[in-house]
């Protein structure tokens, strides 16, 4: 049995990171993720770790780059505008094949946008976290507990792949308080042989670089492509009441939470509806969506807390016009609410295919 605590989502992320072995954090203040650096500023020194408040998001992610090169489990967090500034560093992490964890507690965008919660960074997270055409695994937990579970395993994936891992949440999930069960502190291994650490007894020259000669770079990119394909085995998804569903909501994070409520309400009214909730956004749960029984399913409903919907294209690629795809969302920091979601879904169902 783990230790139960009542925590904010952001604090739960921070504590889970420490228990997962994170020993270096660098970050820059930005709402709504501030509880993560604030918590780690006192918590990391308690376990022999290091917290640095960087002069910018750019410098913070490059501090993480340095720590990760030494084989230290390292993390940074931010929100939309700050993630854009980290894009360069995330690309360098991928190029130098360095494991690290980046958390985005997202808010309304584009630009400075708003400080209120939004899911406006799906495309950035899943398609282009930086220049150069690379991917990171993207996890999208929908509760403080699931965030703990994701963070606890995040470095295992990152080190397995020698690639950064990205966690996409939003200001709601970062700031709601929930009971979480915390796992025990992980025992840390020696720094890996590829790292620049000498604490593992390495006695040969070590070097890590984000630049390569052309044939080597081509080879590494091809290998990365194979790695992305292998992630199909790592897909995490929740299927809720899909067995007889005629309508399937696809939603992640906070939108999935609101959608689950809607499913329960509509089921009580006799509507055959379910929820397909990607927990990994990249890899996207393609087969779960592709292999639905489209002789039964009458419509797919994409619910996101952003406008226009960003996940829609990924959904449509799997639905392949076998039924209409509807979308509903709020944006700019305006939150999804139960009534609005219910009303929209009922509208889609009543409107039928004309509404597609």
């Amino acid at each position: 049995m783990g230790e139960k605590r009542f925590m904010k989502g952001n604090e739960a992320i921070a504590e889970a990171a420490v228990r997962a072995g994170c020993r270096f954090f660098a970050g820059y203040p930005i709402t709504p993720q501030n509880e993560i650096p604030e918590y780690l500023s006192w918590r990391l020194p308690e376990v022999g770790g290091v917290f640095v408040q960087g002069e910018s998001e750019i410098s913070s992610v490059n501090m993480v780059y340095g720590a990760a090169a030494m084989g230290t489990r390292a993390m940074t967090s931010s929100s939309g505008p700050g993630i854009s500034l980290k894009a360069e560093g995330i690309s360098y992490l991928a190029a130098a094949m360095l494991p690290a964890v980046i958390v985005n507690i997202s808010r309304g965008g584009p630009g400075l946008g708003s400080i209120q919660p939004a899911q406006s960074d799906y495309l950035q997270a899943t398609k282009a976290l930086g220049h150069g055409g690379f991917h990171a695994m993207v996890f999208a937990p929908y509760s403080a507990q699931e965030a703990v579970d994701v963070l606890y395993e995040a470095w295992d994936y990152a080190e397995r792949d020698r690639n950064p891992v990205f966690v996409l949440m939003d200001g709601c999930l970062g700031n709601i308080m929930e009971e979480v069960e915390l796992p025990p502190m992980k025992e840390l291994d020696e720094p890996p042989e590829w790292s620049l650490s000498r604490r593992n007894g390495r006695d040969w020259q070590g070097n890590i670089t984000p630049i390569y000669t052309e044939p080597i770079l081509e080879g590494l990119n091809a290998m990365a492509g194979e790695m992305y394909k292998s992630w199909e085995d790592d897909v995490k998804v929740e299927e809720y009441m899909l067995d007889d569903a005629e309508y399937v909501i696809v939603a992640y994070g906070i939108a999935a939470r609101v959608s689950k409520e809607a499913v329960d309400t509509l089921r009580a009214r006799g509507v055959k509806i379910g929820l397909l909730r990607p927990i990994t956004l990249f890899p996207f749960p393609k087969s779960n969506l592709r292999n639905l029984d489209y002789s039964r399913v009458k419509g797919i409903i994409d619910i996101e807390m952003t406008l226009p919907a960003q996940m829609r294209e990924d959904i449509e690629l799997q639905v392949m016009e076998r039924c209409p795809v509807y979308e509903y969302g709020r944006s700019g920091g305006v939150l999804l609410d139960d009534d609005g979601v219910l009303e929209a879904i009922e509208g889609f169902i009543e409107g039928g295919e004309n509404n597609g």
Partner: protein
Amino acid sequence: MAEYKRSNLIADAPSGYCPGCLHSLATRLVSDVICELGQEDNSINVISVGCSALNLLYWKGDFLGVAHGRAPASATGIKRTNPERLVFTYQGDGDLAAIGLAEIVSAANRGENFTVIFANNQTYGMTGGQLAPTTLIGQKTTTTVYGRDPAVAGYPMRMCELLNTLEAPQYIARFALNSPKGINQARAGIKKAFEYQLAGKGFTFIELLTNCPTNWKMSPLDTLEYMNENTIPYFKPGVYRDKEAEVK
């Protein structure tokens, strides 16, 4: 009778630098001092972008290639998690004084316990000789074809003087590599900076005035004279900060 043996921290092959480039001399000096201090296996060269990146193929000790201007940030991540290592960044003037200005000033201000080796050749060598923050007034570059005009491009930035306004740095010094005397002083300064770091004292900064025969469009020997007449009068060599000496 003097002796000299090339260090084994640089490749047993010609560097990637152009003939007469004092970048390669700077790299060699740093490698000599690290060997002299017996730190070959303990040092980490944080290699930035620009001609300094030629070190990626030349440096034989542990190194980390980093993003343009971000070496002081990445060095912070290295040194804070591995304080026993001898960590230094190797940066040019575009890297350090333009794109990386926030990183260098902030690392210096935090008093990070690593050493910055700053090679100032007053131009962007790798990209073909554009205006740098350190380009001298009137100096021609590919983006100031009539010479640097302060009315549109400002004045050359003096990094030692700028960093010397901060409290935390322990040692700040500038040396010119265009004479045997300057080279010997630089070698002593680099050694002092590394000794400060090994003693855990804090941030140390070594600016090395270098040249760029290719982009200045001069013979190597002419660049040395140009430095005497133009560079050194503006960027005055000297020890700007030596905390240990102040205490004494």
